Each structure stands twice: as structure tokens, then as C-alpha cells.
């Protein structure tokens, strides 16, 4: 079924390409050829790799910081009331603004690029994890306290399994968000990565290359979902009926 639906999509693309017969709307065959050439020359793997590296670093920082702050805010009402407004502010600052400001303040360097992505993603993680922490089962926490369980056990055995779905949610929405932001970051101030390449192709009106890179992109995200996230979900949920 999924193969059939993909096939129909490719056919529709082919049909539209033939009908339009335009340089700016290449047919699937050409895109595949461009994709293959970019792979062989090593351009696509290099730039995709750079983008993936930035993604991994900024994602890890945002998730770790976001979980820590989210749990702290979810547990502590006073802290939460104080920082709630900050969160609202940061949630609503446009991604482009943080990127520009980071580059202006810290220069066109790698750390500024990473920081811009983290600042964009962080409020999102915090809000999700805070909701998860608020929803923690008080009955189980009381059980843990009455049996004098160690802090480590409470965190690993009681809090973490309950936060897991929220962390997975933050991971999925986070990957989607960071992908998009990272391209803009690269487009504005880096000399490699997907965003930089796309900018180049845009200036040359090379739509086939743009589409080839996009497909590689979508493929990688699908692989992450299938090879990493799904198995994690299943492992964590095996206790369910």
C-alpha cells in the first residue's frame, strides 16, 4: 500500500513535468540522475553530513537542557510562575530574529550557529517536559517516598518512564523544527551544509539539485524515524496490553 501511494505520487510528478515541460520543473528521472551524480562526487554526503552533525549537537544540547529546566519548572510552582513569562517571550521570538542576533553578536562562527538553533528549540522542549512533569502520578511518588526509595531510583524508575512519551514527542517535533531552522542558519552564515548548497542552487536556478537534496533529506529523516525512534517507542511501551 505505501509503495503504491508513493508510485502514484511519482507518476503524478512525471505527468505534471511532461505537461509543463519547463526547466524549473524537472521530471523524476533527471532528479534521480542529479542525485546520483551528487552522491558520486561526494558533494551531497559532505553537505548532508555537516548539516546532520549540526543537528545532532544542537539537538542534544537543547534536549538535555530542556529536560532539566522542564523538570525543575514542573516540580517547583514558584520557579514556574517566575519563568513562565520568559518562556512565552522566547516561544514567540521569530527564528530568523534569533539567528540574525546570534550572528551579529557572536560573529559568523560555528558556535553562534549552534546557539541560534538551541535557543529556537529550547522553549519548546521546556514546555513539553514541564507538562509531562506536572502530569506525574502523585500516587506513585507517594509510594516511592513511603518506601524511602533513593533519588536515583525515583528518577530512573518512576519519573523517567512517565516522561518518556513527552520526551519522544519533544524529539519528533524537535527534529522537524531543527531541520528547518538549521537550513536558514546555514544559508545566512555558513560555508557548508544543506542550507548553503540550497542557496547556491537557488542563485543558479538549479531546481533538479534542489529537489535531489530535498529527497535525500526526507530519506534521512525517515531512516531516523524507522531505525531509531520507532524501536525506542516499542521498547518503552512493551508493558502495555
Amino acid at each position, binding site marked *: 500500500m505505501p509503495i503504491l501511494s508513493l508510485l502514484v505520487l511519482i507518476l503524478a510528478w512525471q505527468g505534471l513535468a511532461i505537461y509543463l515541460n519547463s526547466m524549473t520543473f524537472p521530471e523524476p528521472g533527471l532528479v534521480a540522475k542529479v542525485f546520483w551524480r551528487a552522491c558520486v562526487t561526494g558533494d551531497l554526503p559532505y553537505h548532508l553530513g555537516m548539516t546532520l552533525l549540526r543537528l545532532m549537537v544542537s539537538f542534544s544540547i537543547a534536549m538535555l537542557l530542556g529536560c532539566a529546566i522542564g523538570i525543575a519548572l514542573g516540580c517547583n510552582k514558584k520557579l514556574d510562575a517566575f519563568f513562565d513569562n520568559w518562556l512565552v517571550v522566547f516561544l514567540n521570538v521569530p527564528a530568523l530574529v534569533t539567528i540574525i542576533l546570534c550572528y551579529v553578536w557572536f560573529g559568523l562562527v560555528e558556535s553562534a550557529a549552534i546557539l541560534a538553533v538551541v535557543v529556537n528549540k529550547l522553549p519548546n522542549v521546556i514546555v513539553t517536559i514541564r507538562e509531562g512533569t506536572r502530569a506525574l502520578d502523585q*500516587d506513585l511518588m*507517594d509510594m516511592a*517516598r*513511603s*518506601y524511602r526509595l533513593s533519588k536515583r531510583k525515583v528518577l530512573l*524508575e518512576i519519573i523517567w518512564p512517565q516522561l518518556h512519551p513527552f520526551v519522544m514527542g519533544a524529539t519528533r517535533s524537535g527534529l522537524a523544527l531543527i531541520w528547518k531552522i538549521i537550513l536558514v542558519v546555514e544559508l545566512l552564515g555558513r560555508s557548508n551544509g544543506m542550507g548553503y548548497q540550497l542557496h547556491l542552487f537557488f542563485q543558479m536556478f538549479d531546481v533538479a539539485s534542489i529537489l535531489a537534496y530535498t529527497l535525500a533529506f526526507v530519506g534521512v529523516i525517515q531512516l531516523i524515524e524507522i531505525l531509531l525512534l520507532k524501536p525506542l517507542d516499542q521498547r*518503552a511501551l512493551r508493558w502495555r496490553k
Partner: protein
Amino acid sequence: MSLVNITVSSKRFLAVGQSIEHLAIADFKLIIPSNEFVCLVGPSGCGKTTLLNIIAGLDQDFVGEIGVGLSGASFKIGYVFQNPRLLPWRTVRQNIELVQERFQNAYLIDQLLDVMQLTQFQHAYPERLSLGMSRRVALIRAFAVNPDLLLMDEPFVSLDAPTARQVRDLLLVLWQKRPHTVLFVTHDLREAIALADRLVFLSAAPMRVVAEITVPIDRAVRNNEQAIEEFRQQLLDDYPDIKRLL
């Protein structure tokens, strides 16, 4: 010997949306000698669960003092809650092992699982168990810490009569194997008579001790329903206060 000495001179709640405080417990005093099985009997909502939470150290917002054990000696509390409160993401056995903090005693767990007839379910997840089985697991968990004081908050409520009776019998078997102090909360007088050395009757909120009565029935004939029923009738006739409470 470890003696439990409970004094709660007042426990107040700030009711949601109201400015008046609700007095839940007032001038409550209870001394339990070690290894005694005490049943707290009172109308529902009178503050029994609140009292157990105070004794377990979950609720520290009260006026009074809880003295447990000899000073300096470590004092372990097992708590069986009204709902089983098992971790759904851990198997039955892992749930029990969880509370064994400093010592892992696999032999004790094996033994408890055997007595409670749960050996073949030890690697199942709690969601696959019936309520009666979950309650038995919660009971094992409490026994697995070798408690000096066992707190039980209506642990058999919402079980059907035969299951409740079965788990009750198993509880007594375990308790007689390893005697320790038990504080058992219930509103079922028959259940209390079947289990307790001593009954403590409680008033509606603010909770106070109305009467303390030792159960004279020998442990060997506690499963005789007629003896229990007779004693219950006699109690209700002798103490009109209790009759009014329940």
C-alpha cells in the same frame, strides 16, 4: 521492643475554594505495643488515610508527634495503599525488588510469591493482572522490606468476597510467620474482627478515638464466621456509639 506512639493534636486542611480550614484530626492518641495487629474502624471520610500518611511521613503538615522504634535503630515501614500502586512498566518481580533498597533478598521474594500463589506471574506486567492479583503483589511488596510497622489502607476494598477472604487468610499466614506491628484501616467491622488483636473505633471528622476493644476470639477460630458474627452483634449491642458510627 519497637513501640509505635502516635499523637496528633491537630491536622487541618485548607479546603479548595474556601477560606475556612477543615479540621480532620483532633486530639488523637494511640499507643501500639510491638507485634500487635490493630484495626482502625471508622466511617469513610473520617481521616483514616490522612492518619496513615502522617505516620508514613508523607504528610508533615500537622501538629503532634509520631514516635516509632527505638531512637537510632532503623525502622522500616511497609505501606499497602488503597490502590495497588504498582509501576506498570516493571514486571511483578521488578516491582517487588524495587523497594529492597540496601539488601536484595531473592529468597524472601521467592517465598512470598509462593505463599501468595503468584510465582508463575512474577515476570508479567501489572496491567495483565486482575485487581486481586495486583493487591497481592502490593502486599508482597510491603512484606519484602521486612517491615517493623505495616500500614494497610483498606487493602481489600472492591475485591469480591471470596477473593478478599483468600487474601486476608494469606495476610494472616505471612503475619504469623514473621510477627510485626500492623495498623490496618477498614470500615468493614467483620473484616476487622477477623484480623485484629485490638479494634480502635474512630469518630467522623474531626477524628477521635471513640473506643478501644480487644478481640477475645482465639486466632485458631477466626475463620469461623459464626463466632465473628456473634461478637459483632454483641459489640453493637454493648456500644450504641459504635452502632451509630457505622
